[in-house]
């Protein structure tokens, strides 16, 4: 059932001539890239080079101390003045961020759009859990799950919201080696199946999809006085 709800979207994420201005520094003087449908574009760089700021900018939650020039577009539509909630860009954080006051199934249902009726919503959540072999955890509190289980629930929650693009902020870094490999394969396969363009922030070369060159970001340069 989960498979049925997943559809190829064919949406392209484009960033052109992006420059983010901080209080006294500039990030990425002229950053441009395109992420085709179902592709994963890795971003790498040292701490403080602005990887998470770039994700915040694409998502539409750039802190007020920053502003940017350049364009971000999804399938040709510019996102500049589109609020976060209308961009429909899914995000997966390093630490899952499952909502502690909801059960596993409720966390999944939270992501499903309202137009889908309740029985179908429940069906989709159960199917998503089955797809990651977690159907026995439907009514469990998320605080009782292991790290790997939390990561899988978090991924399925994002996918069920049918995002137009996805941002992955070091989602594998907290998992142990074995779990990391299997979860990475799961994430990439789902992204390919859904055809959503995805940006992956990582520090680890092992996380890179095969044959894909990462974009290397440099630390920011201080603005010169005067």
């Amino acid at each position, binding site marked *: 059932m989960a498979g049925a709800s997943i559809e190829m979207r064919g949406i392209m994420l484009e960033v052109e001539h992006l420059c983010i201005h901080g209080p006294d520094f500039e990030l990425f003087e002229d950053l441009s890239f395109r992420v085709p449908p179902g592709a994963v574009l890795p971003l790498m760089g040292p701490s403080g080079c602005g990887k998470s700021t770039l994700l*915040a900018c694409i*998502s*539409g*939650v750039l802190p007020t101390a920053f502003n940017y020039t350049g364009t971000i577009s999804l399938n040709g539509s510019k996102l500049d003045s589109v*609020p*976060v*909630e*209308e*961009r*429909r*860009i*899914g*995000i997966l*954080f390093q630490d899952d*961020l499952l*909502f*502690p*006051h*909801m059960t596993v199934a*409720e966390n999944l*249902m*939270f*992501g*499903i*759009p*309202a*137009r*889908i009726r*309740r029985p179908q*919503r429940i069906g989709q959540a159960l199917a998503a859990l089955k797809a990651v072999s977690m159907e026995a955890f439907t009514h469990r509190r998320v605080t009782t799950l292991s790290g790997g289980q939390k990561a899988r629930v978090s991924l399925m929650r994002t996918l069920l*919201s049918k*995002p137009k693009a996805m941002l992955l902020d070091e989602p594998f870094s907290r998992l142990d080696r074995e779990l990391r490999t299997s979860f990475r394969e799961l994430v990439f396969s789902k992204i390919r199946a859904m055809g959503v363009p995805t940006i992956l922030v990582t520090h680890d070369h092992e996380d890179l999809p095969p044959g894909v060159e990462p974009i290397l970001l440099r630390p920011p340069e201080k603005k010169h006085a005067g």
Partner: protein
Amino acid sequence: MLRLAPYLVTALLGVPILAGTASLILPAWNYFPAAGLKEFSALPWQLLSGYPGIMTSFFLTLWTGLGATLLSLTATLGFISFCWQSGWWRVARKLLAPLLAVPHVAFAIGFAFLVAPSGWLLRLISPALTGWHHPPNWQTVQDPMGLALMLAMSLKEIPFLLLMSMAALSQIDVERQVWLGRSFGYSPHRVWYKLLLPQLYPSIRLPVFAVLAYSLCVVDMALILGPNRPATLAVQVYHWFNDPDFHWKTIAAAGALTLLLTTLACIGLLVFIEATWRKLGRFFLVNGRRGGKGRVPGAITRIHIGLTLVTSCMVAAGLIVWSLARRWPFPANVPTRWSLSNWIREAAFFGDPLRTSLVIATVVSIGALALVLFSMEYQASNDRRWPLLAICLPLLLPQLSMLFGVRLLAIRTGLQAQFPLVLWGHLLYVFPYVYLCLAGSYFAFDPRYMHTALALGRSRVYVYFRVKLPLLIKPVLFSWAVGFGVSILQFLPTLILGQGRYPTVTTEAVAIATGGNRRMAAIYALLQLLSSVFAYGIALGWPRWLAHRLKCGESC
């Protein structure tokens, strides 16, 4: 040494509270040897239930207490949902300390100046908009519905709930949860309703209960703003208790017990509503509705908070103006004659109460802070937290009932009103507030600082005073200031445990305000306010001065 902390706190605060509250039970059943009553009977309850207007008093208590709590809670949660990290939020953060510094009695007196038929609000629009040259014949203060009391209490409690909420929010990853929720397509206020408020409420549950208990059993504000024919139950009990005829004390005991049970029932009601919501509200949480922009509720919330800020500023300004007014006929916006004569005349009288207030507040706030630090360090070193419910117990039990019980216990044991008893009465209420204000920062302190310093070969005491306390100086001083302010505003502990022998600016302010002398009431309310502001000034200024000195030291 630290091992003594739980015993010390229990002996100082726990045992007397429970003993005091329990000592209400016997007089409520007509057993009160001090009045020659040595046989149990239900007579006090019969007299209480037959007292004229008692049911109205009871329902007024419920109406004003529950109303004020719900109003302040909805305004606080609404403000957080709609204004988080906005310009409003930054303004509120800056004004929080001064708003908290306004004592309840000072606020009530200033509020009465504003909303009275001859008050500032009507003066500002008269006669231009109303055509009135004389105050209308309205009863906006001490109104029979208790609206003025309810509104004033709700406005006064918003800053406290906001402070508690801000402390609780620092433990939740708000920024990223809002981002995540919005990335699913939810509008920001829906993200708050569905994700963050359900996580926040359990952390502010006890402060909400404390507001409820205070609102149900308030006496000082109710004497100034509340209805008096009949009055709320707490005020009735207070009058019975003060009656020189000892027999009234048994009815007062029954009334105080009723207040206690009412408060516990209302807390139970809130617990029930929360549990029901947690069960039935789950459908709402996951129904997938993303929601609109919420412009209307957002605007209402902003107006409400704006009014709270404006009212608080006008309350303070009104106190200053009234204290300097020589002649201020209606409908003049400001006094037609200004003078310092009120201050000069009263200076001969307010010295003693002011000194008593400052001595009590200084001793009690420092004592409470030391006790809080002592108990927190014990908990931190054992990595075990005491249940917050036990800490907040004095705030959850009606003040009047508990103090009344303690007083009855003192009468039974032959203990006379003594200054240490008054100090203890203040400590009882200052301790939980200091604890609540400091707990978040203290327990979030990174223990590695201590471990690193200890590894350098220093003693635990040295490291505590040279590393931990200096790093926590801001929250420690702020919670001390809150404690100082709480002590300044105490009315019942001073009056009941001191039997009126230790007048403070607060007891004088209430006595004068109920007598209707606006100028004198304004002076005592301002003295209260200035005492609190003085403490907040130290708490906010000292760390800045230390930082400035450190900076100077670096640059020199």
